């Protein structure tokens, strides 16, 4: 199982904030392919410039393996302050 979290405009676009994928895809890219099969618009937004991914609360670049129970967050361009 992998938990996927969406923030900001990604959450509005998808219509959900958190979803479990069971069994967990083997890698981040495999997870994205799975999402693309369900919601092409969301998958495209996840690949847009400025969107980052965090796995188990660490920012990652490129593909990474997902352990069982992984928490994957997709983070659109950030703006606080």
């Amino acid at each position: 199982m992998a938990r996927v979290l969406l923030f900001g405009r990604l959450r509005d676009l998808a219509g959900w904030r958190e979803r479990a994928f069971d069994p967990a895809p083997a890698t981040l890219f495999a997870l994205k392919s799975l999402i693309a099969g369900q919601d092409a618009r969301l998958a495209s937004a996840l690949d847009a410039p400025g969107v980052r991914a965090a796995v188990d609360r660490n920012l990652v670049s490129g593909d990474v393996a997902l352990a069982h129970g992984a928490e994957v967050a997709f983070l659109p361009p950030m703006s606080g302050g």
Partner: protein
Amino acid sequence: MIRLTDQPFDPGAELNRFCQGRKRTGAVASFLGLARGEEGQATTLELEAYPEFTEAEIGKMAAAAAARFDLHDAWVIHRVGAIPPGEAIVLVLTAAAHRREAFEACDFLMDYLKSRAPLWKKEHGAEGSRWVEPSARDLADIQRWE
């Protein structure tokens, strides 16, 4: 100290707490961001964070600022959730021996918060809602430190 809160906070009380017992500190810079009431429009801000991750990431940047600018301390207090006009959004406090370091560290941390910290800001106004992304100026500002 990094703190996210969904309740209003008291900037003056935080400033005074920050200054207590600082024997070596000669300079305390602060920045306070307020939710603006644009020309009478009732715009409400909504700030979203990724709990724990957001605090940890801001904490890393505060530690980097402390090392780079030789700070005695740095605090970031950031409001999350719905923020009505006039209320405090963010307070950054920096303490150093001299003013240049305190100012620059405070400026640096604000630039970071505006374009790199894991926070997402939505404006709810008369014409609907929109997610705010860093402005061209915010993106230019953060480049100054690289």
